[in-house]
C-alpha cells in the first residue's frame, strides 16, 4: 500500500509538471488532445509486422519532451510501471508464430519475434505520447478538452472526481492497512477474511463520503455539469500545431520512410 501511496505522489508530480509555462504548455488543451488522438490512431493502425514504419513516430514525443522541458527519466520510470502489461501481452507470439520472416546476416527471425517487437514499440510510443499529453496539459485540462469536444458531461465529471478522490481513497486505504498490520502478528490477521472485511469497510466509507460530497455539491448549486472557469481559446498556433503534426503522422503512416531512405541509399 505504501508503494501505491508513493506512486500517487508521483502522479501529483505529473500534475505539477503541467503547471510549467512553455510553448507546448500554452497550447490549447483541445489541440494537444486531438493531435495525440491522431497520433494514437496512426500508430495502432499499422499491421502487426510493422517495426521500421513505426520508428519515425518517435519524433513527436521526443520533440514535445524537448520543447516542454519534461524530465525524460521520470517519464521513462512511469512507463516502466505499465511495461509488464505490454511484455505479457505479446510474450507468446514467438512460440505461436514461427514462420521465418527476416534474415539478418544468417540469423533467421520468425514472424512472432517481429510482431512482439512491434507490440513493444507501439506500447512505447502510445504510452509516452499519453504521458507527455498529461504532463503538458494536466489531467484536468484533458478533461476540460474532452468535454469541449463533445464527450458527455457524465463521463468527464466522473473522470475528474475519480482523479480527485483517488488520493483520498488511497490514503484512507493505507491507514486501514497500517491499522491492521499493527494488530496482526505472525501472519495472523493478514488472511483473506480480514482482507475482505477491510475492503468492504472501505467501500462503505466511500459510499458515505460520496454522499457527503454530493451534498456539498448540491449545496453550491450543482446540476450535473462541472463548469470550468478555464477559458479556452483556439489560436492560429493551435491550428498549425494540430494540422502540422497530423499531416506529418499521415505521411509517416502512408509512406514507409525508413524503407524509402534505405532504397535511396542503396540506389545511390
Amino acid at each position, binding site marked *: 500500500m505504501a508503494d501505491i501511496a508513493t506512486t500517487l505522489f508521483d502522479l501529483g508530480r505529473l500534475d505539477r509538471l503541467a*503547471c510549467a509555462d512553455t510553448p507546448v504548455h500554452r497550447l490549447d488543451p483541445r489541440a494537444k488532445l486531438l493531435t495525440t488522438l491522431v497520433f494514437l490512431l496512426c500508430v495502432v493502425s499499422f499491421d502487426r509486422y510493422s517495426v521500421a514504419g513505426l520508428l519515425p513516430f518517435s519524433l513527436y514525443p521526443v520533440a514535445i519532451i524537448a520543447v516542454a522541458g519534461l524530465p525524460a527519466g521520470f517519464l521513462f520510470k512511469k512507463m516502466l510501471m505499465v511495461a509488464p502489461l505490454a511484455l505479457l501481452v505479446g510474450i507468446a507470439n514467438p512460440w505461436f508464430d514461427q514462420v521465418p520472416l527476416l534474415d539478418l546476416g544468417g540469423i533467421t527471425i520468425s514472424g512472432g519475434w517481429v510482431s512482439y517487437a512491434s507490440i513493444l514499440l507501439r506500447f512505447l510510443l502510445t504510452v509516452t505520447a499519453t504521458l507527455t499529453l498529461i504532463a503538458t496539459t494536466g489531467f484536468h485540462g484533458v478533461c476540460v478538452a474532452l468535454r469541449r469536444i463533445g464527450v458527455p458531461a457524465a463521463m468527464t465529471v466522473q473522470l475528474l472526481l475519480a482523479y480527485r*478522490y483517488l488520493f*483520498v481513497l488511497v490514503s484512507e486505504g493505507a491507514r486501514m492497512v497500517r491499522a491492521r498490520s499493527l494488530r496482526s502478528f505472525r501472519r495472523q490477521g493478514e488472511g483473506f477474511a480480514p482482507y475482505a472485511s477491510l475492503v468492504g469497510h472501505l467501500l462503505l466509507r466511500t459510499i458515505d463520503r460520496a454522499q457527503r460530497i454530493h*451534498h*456539498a455539491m448540491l*449545496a*453550491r448549486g*450543482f446540476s450535473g455539469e462541472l463548469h470550468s*472557469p478555464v477559458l479556452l481559446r483556439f489560436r492560429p498556433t493551435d491550428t498549425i500545431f494540430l494540422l502540422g503534426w497530423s499531416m506529418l503522422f499521415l505521411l509517416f503512416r502512408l509512406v514507409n520512410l525508413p524503407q524509402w531512405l534505405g532504397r535511396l541509399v542503396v540506389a545511390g
Partner: protein
Amino acid sequence: MSHHLVELTDLNYTYPDATQALDSVSFRITHGESVALVGANGAGKSTLLMHLNGALLAQHGAVRIGDIPATRATLPEIRRSVGMVFQDPDDQLFMPTVFEDVAFGPLNLGLPPEEVERRVNDALARVGAEGLRKRPSHHLSGGEKRNVAIATVLAMQPDVLVMDEPSSSLDPLARRRLIYLLNSFDHTKIIATHDLDLVLDVCRRTIVMHQGRIMADGPTGEIFQDEGLLRRSHLEKPLRLQACPVCGR
C-alpha cells in the same frame, strides 16, 4: 423582511432505522446573531444542520430561511442563502484547484466570468488564501483546506453561515486564526461544535441539544455556568471557566 432569519418550528426527524434524531425542535435566530449548537455525540446536531440547507427536508414541522419555507421547490434559493461549511474539508473541495473550487458555486449561479473572478478574489482575500489560488486542493494543509472551504461558501455571498465542527483537527494557531475570521463576519452564524472555548469567543447565544431535544437556549455565559445542565447533556464547563489546575482558584 430580512433574509438572515432562521426559524424552526416543531421539527421532527426519524431515520429509516427508527432512531428519532430530532424531537420537536423549535428556535428562531435573527439577523446577525451568532449561535452555537452544542451537545454530545449523537445529540442530533448534524441532522439539524442538514435541515438548514435542504439536504434533509422536514418530515414534520417546518424550516424557514428568511421569508422562504424550505421545500423541494425552494431548494435553489435556500442553498444560495445558507452557506454550509462541512466538517471534513475533503468533502467540500472536490475541484482540481483552489480557484476552481471557489468558482464552482458562482459559476453554477450562472454569473458572468468577470463577476466570478471578482467573487473568487474577494472570498480568497477574506480568508487570507490569495496565495493558494492555483494550488491543487488535495495538497493543502488542514488549516489551509478549512480556509478554502470557508471561501467556497463566502463566494456564494450567503446570508447565513452554517458550520459543522469548524475547529476540529486544526492546530492551535490555525484555530485561533479561525476564531478571528469568524468574528470578522457579520453573517448570521450557526456553529455546531464540541469546542466550547471557541463558543465563548464567537457566540453570544448557545443552544444545548441532547437526544434530539433542545435542553436549553440562552446567553452563552449563563448556560456555561449551569453545571447541572452541562452534566445532564454530557458536556463540561469550557476550560477557561474551570478553576486553575495550579492554584485551584
